[in-house]
């Protein structure tokens, strides 16, 4: 793990940290939901980074399932907010 990979890991950690700040301190609930939507993508990519770090392809399956479930959850939440407008 050389300097470039350490810098990439640091930037990923900072990205998750900033997303968590917006998720905690968002003025309204839609801000928190947008922060959660961005954090799911960043977390999926960070899981593939863990797969490369530990040289274990098992984390790729975890990342794929996490991405599928986050997409389904976000669309369900959007439908719930939108209400019955058909």
């Amino acid at each position, binding site marked *: 793990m*050389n300097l*470039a*990979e350490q*810098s*990439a*890991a640091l*930037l*990923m950690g*900072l*990205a*998750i*940290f*900033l*997303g968590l*700040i*917006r998720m905690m301190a968002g003025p*309204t609930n*839609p*801000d928190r*939901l*947008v*922060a959660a*939507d*961005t954090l799911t*993508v*960043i977390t*999926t*990519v960070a899981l*593939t*980074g863990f*797969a*490369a770090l530990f*040289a274990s*392809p098992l984390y*790729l*399956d975890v*990342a*794929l399932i996490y*991405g*599928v479930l*986050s*997409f389904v959850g*976000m*669309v369900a*939440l*959007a*439908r719930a*907010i*939108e*209400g019955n*407008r058909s």
Partner: protein
Amino acid sequence: MRALADTFLLVGAAFAFLAALGLIRMPDVFNRIQAGTKAATLGAITFLIGVGLLHPEWWTKLVAIGGFILLTNPVSSSALARAFLLAGVRPWHAPGDHVRDALPGPTED
């Protein structure tokens, strides 16, 4: 090959960081959702290319994850933005901007 993979990893992580920085810096929820979605999608694809250059034997699962992110992340963000607009969240407008009444959205009645 290792240096090229590290370059892709660094650029992808930098775009993910810029997406999170856009979440902090943008003024309202619609600006935040577009900044986060576009930068995070580009960063995700770039980071996955970097991982694929480090471990070329994983390319099938990496292509599956990348294609899935590329197809579904804009869809979920668009659904969220449409739901916010229909639920009554009004877009932010700069002071002195008179195009606000032309924007689509819920009427005031």
